[in-house]
């Protein structure tokens, strides 16, 4: 029993972060121990070796998304990429207008970058998605104003995994001459991205969501037609002046290798993960009153976000401590608010609180999924036996019509 308790939980939180693939870690190590030169050092072989590794990695990142390596700018991660793209481009082109269009379900770093621009004299629209999490193209088109300078839409949502129609949204932006930024942190290695054809001007990437190291990311900045951005980090003029700061060679090498592996293995890996996700979905849907959050068709195979009705969120998280998952419950978030993404889809507070995000990845096994299904079935049943709301539901009482005493 002690052994069982001390065992690590099963990791089903790949959308939060992924382990570094051992092949990636192996490739990184020499750039910490032996090839420690500064890639900006032009006067000796230490620098040249590091620079070569950085450029090879840049090539690999570009290849995964079919871009030119000269369009890739290294950053510290997707948060920085999103800040740099949104604030950098909006400021550079602010003569055109000072309105930003984004979606209410974007990642906090996009929302907060836009909020910062609002404090700086810009105005913003946070468009609500449809109840399935997808953006309605007509509503998006209507939300663009003559003074809209930039639109930002994520490719894959981090909480519910839905995939937006970036091509159609990008075409609307092109017609209206609006700069289009896409946060692709959750998309690399999961959906095909072809920037040669996609009408996207700026795209953010992260390494640690794709089996690379934390602390490294990239921003794609289109060359044709050329997009300009104002630097947010000033200094030695690295990355053609768009982002100063000594390049972390080992991190960059890791991102390059992670993206190379993603390019080669993506198709097979996605098929395997889809089977696991479908198995999990069917297993959980055996139960009554479970609701999938977000569209199932336009969705990466890695994500399953489910609400379990009549079960309170925090006790649910306590009950499933043998698996590592994320929850929409206030109790597990820093802000003490239920998931704003699920709220934007029109989910009630109760359903948002009782949601679990399962995210499956490279090292998830079928046995992990079987264990998870059984665990959830046992625990949900136990908590519902405890729940007066479940009893009322079973007695045919409409809980939304009950007058609850406020407390």
């Amino acid at each position, binding site marked *: 029993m002690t052994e069982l308790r001390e065992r690590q939980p099963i990791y089903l939180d790949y959308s939060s972060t992924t382990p570094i693939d051992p092949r990636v870690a192996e490739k990184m190590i020499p750039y910490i121990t032996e090839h420690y030169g500064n890639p900006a050092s032009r006067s000796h072989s230490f620098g040249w070796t590091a620079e070569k590794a950085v450029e090879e990695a840049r090539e690999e990142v570009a290849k995964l998304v079919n871009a030119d390596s000269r369009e890739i700018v290294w950053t510290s991660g997707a948060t920085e990429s999103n800040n740099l793209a949104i604030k950098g481009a909006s400021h550079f082109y602010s003569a055109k207008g000072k309105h930003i269009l984004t979606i209410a379900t974007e990642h906090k770093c996009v929302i907060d970058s836009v909020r910062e621009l609002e404090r700086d004299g810009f105005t913003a629209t946070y468009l609500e998605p449809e109840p399935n999490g997808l953006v309605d193209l007509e509503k998006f088109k209507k939300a663009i104003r003559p003074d809209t300078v930039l639109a930002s839409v994520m490719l894959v949502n981090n909480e519910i995994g839905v995939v937006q129609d970036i091509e159609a949204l990008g075409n609307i932006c092109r017609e209206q001459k609006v700069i289009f930024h896409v946060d692709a942190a959750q998309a690399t290695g999961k959906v095909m991205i072809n920037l040669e054809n996609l009408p996207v001007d700026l795209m953010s990437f992260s390494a640690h969501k794709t089996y690379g190291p934390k602390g490294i990311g990239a921003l794609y900045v289109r060359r044709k037609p050329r997009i300009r951005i104002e630097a947010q980090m000033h200094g030695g003029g690295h990355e053609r002046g768009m982002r100063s700061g000594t390049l972390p060679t080992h991190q960059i090498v890791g991102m390059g290798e992670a993206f190379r592996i993603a390019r080669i293995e993506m198709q097979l890996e996605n098929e395997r993960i889809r089977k696991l996700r479908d198995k999990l979905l069917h297993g959980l849907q055996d139960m009554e009153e479970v609701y999938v959050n977000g569209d199932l068709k336009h969705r990466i195979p890695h994500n399953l976000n489910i609400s379990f009705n*009549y*079960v*309170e*969120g*925090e*006790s649910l998280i*306590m009950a499933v401590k043998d698996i590592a998952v994320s929850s929409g419950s*206030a*109790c597990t978030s820093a802000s003490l608010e239920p998931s704003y993404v699920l709220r934007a889809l029109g989910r*009630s*507070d*109760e359903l948002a*609180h009782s949601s679990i995000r399962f995210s499956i990845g490279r090292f998830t096994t079928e046995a992990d999924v079987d264990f998870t299904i059984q665990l959830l079935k046992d625990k949900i049943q136990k908590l519902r*036996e*405890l*729940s*007066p*709301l*479940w*009893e009322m539901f079973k007695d045919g009482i409409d*809980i939304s019509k009950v007058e*609850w*005493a*406020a*407390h």
Partner: protein
Amino acid sequence: MAYSDKVLDHYENPRNVGSLDKNDPHVGTGMVGAPACGDVMKLQIRVSDDGVIEDAKFKTYGCGSAIASSSLVTEWLKGKTLDQAYEIKNSAIAEELALPPVKIHCSVLAEDAIKSAIADLKSKQGK
């Protein structure tokens, strides 16, 4: 969040889960809280003709501390007179379970549930 061993024990092995017949004149039912607030407690007591609580049952929708608070009071209520039950204070529940400050409201809710169940019984019996 770190829970005390007592909270974990009640959460994992809740005592006296279930329902009594709410139409029984000897049964008082208290239902407090609201789903939107994240806690609903249903507490029921069956009281003998001489005013002693013979049985207590609960069902709770809520966090581990709410489940533990209501489970604990069902243990405490059995064998008590209504007057003694009325004297149970939330501070005693919070102390017994070592609830952190953010979970004190769970013990308040449990005390409210006791008072609500007693009031229901008394109104039923026309007292």
